[in-house]
């Protein structure tokens, strides 16, 4: 009896797909959480945790999550930018973990922009 | 059979034969130093270099180990072959300037001046490896070996100690082309003069005789085993080398096996 079959190889590969994708930097969607001092003070960390939790729960392997500095609109923090490959980035403001989860499900996964939380469209493309 | 041309003469040789063997068939002499018919080719002295032309490409090869090929053209005294041979002889002259065989060869090839410094004028070993190889592959004793690397290479005994596997057969001395290997009189003497009844002779060391069983109280001159070697085989380690071919080596090894079983 062989210890390992081709199917097992595939399973190992599938399990590590998110890791591979991150290292190759080739995700389908990118979420940038703004982590300036203002952002952190306003609870950006909770937003980050919410996004990471969603990625894990929904098993969304192709989503890159990253941080950036202050976006210059400190009064509307916490903020995040969602960018789907080939589309204009969308900036969301005044976030809460619940809003983040909605954005994740609707925009990141389904491609539907959550208009009520969005600030602007098409600014500051980052990838 | 394979036909080839050596120095313009057509010759037929068996498949697997070397250029050296084919040339000898024609009576052409290719000089060698490290070669012996009773041993596998070693190709280390690089004196037997000849020029081979095949498919319009010319290359230098050693005659002692290169197999003949159909349609091959060999030149044993082309300028290229001679230049190679001369350079290696000159290098060997610088290594061992006193050695007769090297001096004679150098003279034959018209080498008058040695352009290289002589490190040790008393050096007499040219590292042809005949002693080491015959002791390993014919005698089966491996009592002589090489030590060190590169220009420090030298012949030695394992761990630089008097070897306890040496059976004092003397075949190394017989093959040595320069006289560098001398059987120490003591080694031979040891076998004859070991005291007591429980001692080993060369045959017990080789596993042919059981330990300490000697019919004539270690008087080696009257050795029965020696006599049996001669009667059965007309051979003995030293005579194998004299018989000069690989077949007698394997016959000898077969014989050894048989006597060991008895």
């Amino acid at each position, binding site marked *: 009896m062989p210890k390992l079959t081709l199917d097992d190889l595939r399973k190992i590969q599938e399990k590590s797909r998110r890791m591979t994708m991150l290292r190759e*930097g080739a995700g389908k969607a990118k979420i940038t959480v703004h982590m300036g001092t203002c952002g952190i003070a306003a609870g950006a960390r909770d937003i980050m945790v919410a996004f990471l939790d969603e990625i894990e729960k929904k098993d969304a392997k192709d989503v890159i999550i*990253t*941080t950036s500095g202050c976006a210059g609109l400190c009064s509307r923090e916490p903020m995040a930018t969602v960018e789907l490959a080939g589309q204009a980035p969308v900036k969301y403001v005044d976030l809460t973990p619940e809003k983040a989860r909605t954005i994740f499900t609707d925009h990141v996964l389904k491609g539907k922009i959550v208009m009520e939380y969005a600030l602007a469209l098409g600014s500051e493309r980052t990838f | 059979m394979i036909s080839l041309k050596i120095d313009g003469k057509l010759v037929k040789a068996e498949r697997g034969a070397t250029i050296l063997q084919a040339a000898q068939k024609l009576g052409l002499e290719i000089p060698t130093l490290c070669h012996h018919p009773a041993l596998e080719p070693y190709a280390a002295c690089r004196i037997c270099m000849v020029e081979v032309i095949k498919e319009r490409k010319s290359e230098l090869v050693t005659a002692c180990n290169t197999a003949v090929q159909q349609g091959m053209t060999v030149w044993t005294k082309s300028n290229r072959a001679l230049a190679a041979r001369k350079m290696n002889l000159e290098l*060997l002259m*610088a290594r061992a300037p006193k050695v007769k065989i090297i001096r004679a060869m150098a003279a034959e090839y018209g080498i008058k001046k040695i352009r290289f410094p002589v490190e040790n004028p008393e050096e007499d070993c*040219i590292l042809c490896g005949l002693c080491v190889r015959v002791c390993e592959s014919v005698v089966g004793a491996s009592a002589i070996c090489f030590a060190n690397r590169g220009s420090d290479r030298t012949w030695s005994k394992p761990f630089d100690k008097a070897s306890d596997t040496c059976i004092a057969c003397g075949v190394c001395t017989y093959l040595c082309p320069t006289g560098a290997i001398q059987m120490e009189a003591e080694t031979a003497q040891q076998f004859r003069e070991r005291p007591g009844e429980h001692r080993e002779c060369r045959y017990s060391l080789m596993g042919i005789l059981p330990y300490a069983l000697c019919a004539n109280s270690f008087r080696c001159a009257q050795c029965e085993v020696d006599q049996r070697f001669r009667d059965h085989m007309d051979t003995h380690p030293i005579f194998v080398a004299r018989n000069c071919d690989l077949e007698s080596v394997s016959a000898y090894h077969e014989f050894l096996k048989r006597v060991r079983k008895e």
Partner: protein
Amino acid sequence: MKTYRSYCMVCAGTACVSNRSFHIKEALEREIEKQGLQDEIAVVTTGCNGFCAVGPLVVVHPEGIFYQQLREEDIPYVVEEHFLKGRPVKRLMYSPPGEQTPIPKMNDIGFFKQQRLIALRNRGLIDPERIDEYIARDGYFGLAKALKMKPREIIQEIKDSGLRGRGGAGFLTGLKWELTRKAKSNGGKFVLCNADEGDPGAFMDRSIVEADPHSVIEGLIIGAYAIGANQGYIYIRNEYPLALKRLIIALEQARNYGLLGKDILGSGFDFDIKIVRGAGAFVCGEETALMASVEGRLGEPRPRPPFPTEHGIWSKPTNNNNVETWANVPSIIRRGAQWYSQIGTETSKGTKVFSLVGKINNTGLVEVPMGITLREIIYDIGGGIPHEKAFKAVQTGGPSGGCIPAELLDLPVDYESLSEAGSMMGSGGMVVLDEDTCMVDIARYFLSFTQDESCGKCTPCREGTKMMLHLLKKITEGKGTEEDLETLEQLAHEVKETSLCGLGKTAPNPVLTTLRYFRDEYEAHIKEKRCPAHVCRQLNTYRIDPDACTACGLCRKECPEDAISGGKKQPHLIDQQKCVKCGICFDVCKFEAVCID
């Protein structure tokens, strides 16, 4: 598997490790934990990234931010600024020599931009000590594919790919496999991986094994299956402790997964690999000597034929390829011969790994498509020569290769072009020499290496290289005559023609190529007793420039022969009668007042 948002790839190749990269790794882990980011950011140690000149280095994914020359004290700042606040730290990024603007992303840096990675495809992207990460990047899928093919088809695929041996001679790999497959054996065949890399300044194979040991193992299994071997050997030099350690781990993991052993992937094919450690003899890189060493005998070459494909380890047919060749095999099988053969030139397909060392800005390991010019490698990838010095020559192929001069910089790098120029591809060492290099001295240096490493079996290599070295020393000491030069040339030619193995056959190459391209330097040493590059100290005349001398007295104090006179506020003077030309005054003078005439 944990869901991280970012991976921090710490280079743990030998060069970065000796620059304390393991300390950097620990500091990273410590600081990440301090900031509470341990569930978001993972720290991974990888094999050699290649850009050894700027190590220790860390690449942060997914952004691909390249941090270089890190010190432990930089780490808290990096973690807080970049990982916590999302502001990559500019001052730790790489800026090309002479430029101010840093380049944040690894793939935008010139050193990486022109590279094409096949043998090194996983470098910096996986932890070499985790087989799952190799599998994640398509590892062992080539094997799975191969095991479904017929051995004949695999050999055909390798033949069609045009892959040639990366160890030096460039023999067609597929053809060698076919010869071994067809060879008759009365009890098994072997595959062998030569990891006894020994050229000074070459570290291709070490880096491949350190960064991606499974690629070599997978290649060996595929080769063994194609050839019909059930036992493999990897002969690796013991001076590569990190590579050895990772190889042992990798073999163990492959065995645990059943990728080595019985019935591999359910194919019915059995195969395992043993490691044999070399004891540091350069000549054991020669395949017949290597095989003697595997058998436990003295590492000495023997005449060929018989070739190893018929008569190898324990007299059984043996297929020997070097590390880089084996590492190319999985990708060729997985992606097909056609894909591979599109890369490179007509006769030299695929890519080649080179180690760039010597007088070059970007010291490191590069993999480039065959046919790229030397100029592109040295200037575009290598970043040119430091301190704006002029390029003089590049030594390719290590001590067995030759020096290629500036006028041949546009030479395409492939097997044929390099050997026409008198050098060779070799295993891929590239030593760059600048205007301050004396070519006679370089020839002497490389020859002293091969002379020392000669096994001493055959006359020309043992005696000939010794005499060549003697003549070169004479010339660099200013005692050479025109007759010596003639003798040297003749001797070099005969050693090349008549030596038994590759070591002796190639040892004269540095001498022959420098004679071919830099004969004037030899003549300057002999006729004018002058070393144009001021390297050969015995030919230098040291003089103190009275205008530049500050009378500090340092040279006077250091001179071992008391040849320097002078007092306070008095320019110093060298007594040429007493001077032994040791050059110490030149080395110690802080004001560049000691000149060489």
